[in-house]
């Protein structure tokens, strides 16, 4: 439409188009009136100088909808829209016509039934022979009528159909009485009925709720259009399709509504998705309000859009106050910056985010919370939302701090203790050194001079004197051995340990051979299991095995068919090595004394020894992180079990 943008355009120098309305010579006034009155295409009316209607033709009746008797004597502004009346348009046009001879104007006019039409109006002043204004003639053309007609002509036929068919959405046109007047292929498919069957049937028949369908098109008729009107379409085969309707009225040449153009959109999928979403949304909310954590969500840019009930309970803040960046308020001032830095970087990078921060409870108490969040991405990998939780870690945090405090205290104590131990160890070393040096020296003197007495003063001593000196010497030498054993024991604890694979089988073989060399006359049956390997210090393990196998050798002395066995066994408690003999054994009542220093279960006269050997074995095994224990019975032999690392372990 090429209507002027402004409603009023007054032409001072008009060029009348359709009608000549120059001041007429009133020669044949009657025949002129007859002519005017018979014109149907134009509303030609006469106004008195004030603008009141004094004549009304057929055209006026047709265009405006009033009959002559309804409007004669009424003011011409009757046909103007309210807003034009308010602007005093009617008066202006008359004044302009009086001044310039005529005025022309295009704009909206109102029919009797209230509908509007686009009009071209020409007003011409009528004067008497003295030049006084006698009145006005007003010729009105309905332009919209012509335009619509042109459009209708232009678009009628194939063009319209193809437009309708081009739509993939079901389209129908509905008559004023609610019957379908046309339908496209999509409508055929949606309903399952061919077009011929659809046409002239009631539109509402195709819906689960016909009343709703009727209400829909009635609303379209009333309001001119309907948007997103939800209905459920029933297919011929019975299945239901959720649709939303968009409908608009269309009009005939005269502008009267003659039908509704209704387009449906299948939203079954969308509706299912929405329902599912609704379900998951509800589930989410229930879940969010059930968990003891604070649950929240933000937009992609970090603007908060959701908090669960826990947040409200804890912070005492309203949801409204928490929206956006309102959630900042309960954060401890000392934690806010770090939290923001982490959060900002997470939002920038779309990465997950974790922070620990103190949050103020409604009563003002701060508690530690673990804040975590993860982004929700769309199909293109763009962040849509952030979901986050806050977990109360206050008690854990306090425990952590306490543990740290204890740990640092412990470390301090360990350092102090280590220093003490190192000092004690040094002292022990010094002591061991002086034992080896200084305690042995007098013994040498005692033994040495006793021997000289025995050798050089033999004649001056009787048998008893010689016996006493022999005892002195024996005791001295024994003490020498005790000192040596004691030193060996201290060395087992003090020396630095290596950790390598030690072939116990081979070691036991060597020791057995040495024992046989020391007492070649003895016959002992050895059973040494093959492939016994332990991780540890080769020297210390040799000392331990020497003691265990040496003991077995010693205590099987009286046995005719002495047997000594080294093996390995698996029990429910784990694997262990053992040395078993069939010697004199021991009474289990004294098993607790076995591993004590200088503890002996046999008289020295019976079995020599210092009582240090097993103590040494225990120290060595313990230093390797193992355990040693014994079982036996008098004359039933003895078995010593011990565990050692069997695979390399970091000390």
């Amino acid at each position: 439409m090429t209507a002027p943008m402004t409603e009023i355009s007054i032409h001072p120098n008009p060029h009348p188009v359709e009608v000549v309305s120059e001041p007429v010579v009133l020669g044949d006034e009657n025949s002129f009136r007859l002519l005017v009155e018979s014109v149907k295409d134009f509303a030609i009316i006469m106004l008195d100088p004030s603008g009141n209607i004094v004549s009304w033709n057929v055209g006026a009746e047709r265009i405006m909808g009033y009959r002559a008797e309804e409007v004669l004597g009424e003011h011409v502004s009757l046909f103007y829209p309210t807003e034009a009346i308010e602007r005093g348009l009617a008066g202006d046009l008359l004044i302009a016509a009086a001044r310039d001879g005529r005025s022309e104007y295009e704009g909206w006019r109102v029919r009797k039934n209230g509908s509007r039409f686009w009009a071209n109006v020409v007003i011409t002043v009528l004067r008497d022979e003295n030049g006084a204004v006698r009145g006005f003639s007003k010729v009105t053309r309905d332009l919209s009528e012509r335009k619509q007609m042109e459009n209708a002509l232009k678009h009628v036929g194939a063009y319209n159909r193809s437009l309708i068919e081009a739509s993939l959405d079901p389209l129908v046109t509905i008559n004023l009485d609610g019957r379908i007047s046309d339908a496209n292929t999509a409508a055929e498919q949606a309903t399952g009925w061919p077009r011929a069957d659809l046409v002239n049937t009631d539109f509402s028949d195709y819906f689960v709720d016909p009343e709703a369908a009727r209400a829909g098109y009635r609303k379209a008729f009333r309001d001119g259009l309907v948007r997103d009107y939800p209905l459920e379409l029933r297919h011929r085969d019975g299945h239901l399709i959720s649709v939303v309707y968009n409908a608009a009225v269309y009009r005939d040449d005269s502008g009267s509504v003659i039908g509704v153009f209704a387009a449906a959109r299948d939203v079954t999928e969308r509706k299912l998705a929405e329902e599912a979403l609704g379900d998951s949304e509800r589930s989410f909310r229930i879940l969010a309000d059930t968990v003891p954590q604070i649950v929240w969500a933000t937009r992609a840019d970090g603007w908060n859009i959701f908090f669960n009930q826990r947040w409200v309970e804890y912070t005492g803040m309203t949801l409204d106050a928490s929206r956006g960046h309102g959630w900042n308020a309960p954060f401890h001032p000392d934690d806010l910056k770090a939290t923001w830095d982490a959060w900002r970087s997470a939002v920038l990078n779309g990465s997950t985010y974790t922070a620990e921060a103190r949050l103020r409870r409604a009563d003002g108490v701060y508690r530690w919370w673990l804040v975590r969040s993860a982004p929700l991405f769309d199909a293109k990998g763009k962040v849509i939302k952030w979901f986050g939780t806050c977990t109360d870690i206050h008690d854990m945090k306090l425990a952590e701090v306490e543990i740290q405090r204890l740990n640092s205290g412990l470390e301090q104590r360990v350092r102090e203790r280590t220093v003490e131990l190192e000092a004690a160890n040094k002292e022990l070393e010094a002591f061991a050194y002086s034992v080896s040096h200084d305690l042995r020296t007098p013994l040498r003197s005692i033994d040495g001079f006793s021997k000289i007495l025995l050798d050089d003063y033999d004649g001056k001593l009787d048998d008893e004197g010689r016996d006493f000196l022999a005892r002195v010497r024996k005791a001295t030498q024994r003490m020498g051995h005790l000192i040596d054993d004691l030193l060996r024991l201290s060395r087992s604890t003090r020396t630095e340990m290596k950790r390598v694979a030690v072939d116990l089988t081979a070691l036991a073989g060597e020791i057995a051979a040495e024992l046989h060399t020391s007492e070649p006359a003895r016959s002992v049956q050895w059973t040494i299991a093959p492939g016994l390997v332990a991780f540890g210090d080769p020297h210390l393990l040799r000392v331990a095995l020497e003691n265990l196998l040496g003991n077995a050798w010693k205590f099987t002395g009286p046995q005719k068919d002495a047997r000594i066995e080294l093996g390995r066994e698996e029990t429910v408690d784990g694997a262990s090595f053992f040395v078993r003999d069939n010697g004199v054994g021991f009474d289990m009542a004294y098993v607790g004394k076995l591993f004590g220093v200088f503890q002996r279960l046999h008289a020295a006269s019976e079995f020599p020894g210092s009582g240090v050997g097993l103590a040494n074995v225990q120290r060595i095994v313990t230093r390797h992180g193992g355990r040693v224990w014994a079982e036996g019975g008098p004359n039933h032999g003895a078995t010593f079990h011990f565990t050692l690392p069997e695979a390399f372990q970091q000390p």
Partner: protein
Amino acid sequence: MKNKTILLVEDNADDVKLTLHAFQKCNIRNKVVVIGDGAAAIDFLFGTGPYVDRDLSDQPAVVLLDLKLPKVDGLEVLRRIRSDPRTKHQPVVVLTSSKEEHDIIASYNLAANSYIRKPVDFEQFGEAVRQLGMYWLLLNEQPPGATDLS
């Protein structure tokens, strides 16, 4: 060779007596110089202090050196002996009560010719001293320097 001296560096009077007794028992008649502390031993070997007039060409056939000594300990005495060209070949046998590994290693590191731990049993001690004397006084060839100057 018979007039070669033995230097016994030992502060314990009992050990001195027992050592001398053992030498006597096995008929070692060589002169035994007994010195009771490390500092005096160094003076003796280098002709300093009270030994300033001593003939340094007459060095002992063997030095029997205890490690635990007053003033200067045995290892220091050994270090001084080995670090001086005049005495670096001097035969030195460490004769001590200690069986500590670090003492043994330190002694050999300073090129001790031998390391013997004094046994408590006097019979074993006597045997050790006898073998020492036999070996160092009879079997062992003296370093050329010492021989030439004798």
